[in-house]
């Protein structure tokens, strides 16, 4: 990847990486740090990265940086997040997207990641597995569990027909 190609992936994917990080960290400054660190790491290895792999490399790097940031901030929710999503909350969310965003924030990090990569970026299960370092079958399991947890919140709040 030369300079021109590198600058191209800045234009193409900086917003995507920023949104991805922001959904995880819920902090604009931290999300911007992730974007900068991600592109710095990609630049350091740009000679070994092909343009066609740029996007997946970016998301893989960003994902690991996000995990490190979360560990540092001790915001890991763990598997108990599933139950937390299913429970009724005191938040008065009547808007579907608002409720979805709230429910998403309560998912365990890995489930949040796979759902975001699936819905936001349109990755298939194999690609998500490469990015997150888990098997394709495990990705499916997390996707299914995440979908169910999100559905349970919506049903609980009578936000679906």
């Amino acid at each position, binding site marked *: 990847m030369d*300079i021109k190609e590198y600058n191209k992936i800045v234009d193409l994917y900086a917003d995507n990486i920023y*949104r991805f990080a922001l959904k995880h960290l819920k902090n604009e400054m931290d999300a911007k740090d992730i974007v900068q660190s991600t592109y710095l790491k990609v630049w350091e290895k740009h000679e070994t990265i092909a343009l066609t792999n740029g996007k997946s490399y970016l998301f893989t790097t960003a994902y690991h940086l996000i995990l490190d940031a979360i560990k540092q901030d001790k915001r890991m929710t763990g598997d108990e997040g599933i139950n937390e999503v299913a429970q009724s909350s005191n938040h008065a969310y009547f808007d579907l997207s608002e409720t*979805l965003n709230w429910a998403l924030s309560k998912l365990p990090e890995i489930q949040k990641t796979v759902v975001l990569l699936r819905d936001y970026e349109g990755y298939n299960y194999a690609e998500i597995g490469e990015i997150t370092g888990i098997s394709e079958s495990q990705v499916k399991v997390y996707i299914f569990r995440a979908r169910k947890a999100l559905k349970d919140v919506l*049903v609980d709040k009578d936000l679906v027909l």
Partner: protein
Amino acid sequence: MIEKVNIENYEAYYLDYLENNLSDEDRILFELFLKNHPDLIEDDLIIEPLSETYNNKLSLHEKQSLKLFSSDEKVNDFNVEQFIIAYHEGILDQIKTKELLTFIQQYPIYSNLFNSYKEIKLKPDYTIQYSSKNALKKGKTRALYYFVSGVAAMLAFVIYFSQLNQQKSVVVSTNTTTKNNNSNLISAKKGFVNSTTTYVTKKQLIVEQIKNNHTIDTIQSNENIEIIQQENPNLIASTQPLLPSNPNKNKSVTPTNKNENTYLSFSDMKKPIEVVTQFLPDEYQKFIDIRYAKPTDSKQGGFYIKIGDFQFSRKKSPDQNLTSR
């Protein structure tokens, strides 16, 4: 010599003893050990199987949720939710899709569930954007960004100062010029003139003065500006200011020294820079003039800048320090 059964391992032997798992030799050794240590004998120790007292079980639903989804199964009450998720994930083939939809038609109670999963597809918020993309870029693109930013800042500066000077009076030089010096005639660009009432008035005044054979002092004109001189080739310059509203009609705008033999007048200086505003829309047009001249043995140098009503000049004589006015 370490005894085979000792205080460290007797408990393991105890369990085997109670379960009759010890060999004859080990049993004799263990009973001898207990005889020597009567305080270690457990009278209440009873071993019973626990399976009958263990009642915790997973529900069928919980077991079902642990299973990996397999589209080979037939759609039923236990796996219909998995199939619905798979449908909305887009991973069901045509046959299974048809089977699922038929099943839901047969059992409408699942239609709400089907619609629920339809709603939970996340959509990216495209209003969330990273604002500092250019700072991430490398190489020439980044340098170009800074260069363009610098030029844009300079243009903004010019526009800002132009906007400050809303009064449209054109203060003219008091230098006299010859009638053949075409560049010293006042002119006005058509569109520029029409942008404000004041400018229209000015053009009318110019035309009026020309008609009345008034000499007109000029300031330097934009090459793209319509030259009124073409209408009046015999026009000669004068010191009369252009706008009658100017109370100081004879007030000199550009500072000059009376001794023109040693001092270079601004009208004689070169214009190194084209009028900046020629590329701007009409509503932003202002008279802008920038001139400079190098000092010679006999004449002063210096520079002169005029933007609307704002002006600044500095002159340098051949053997004197720089003076500003």
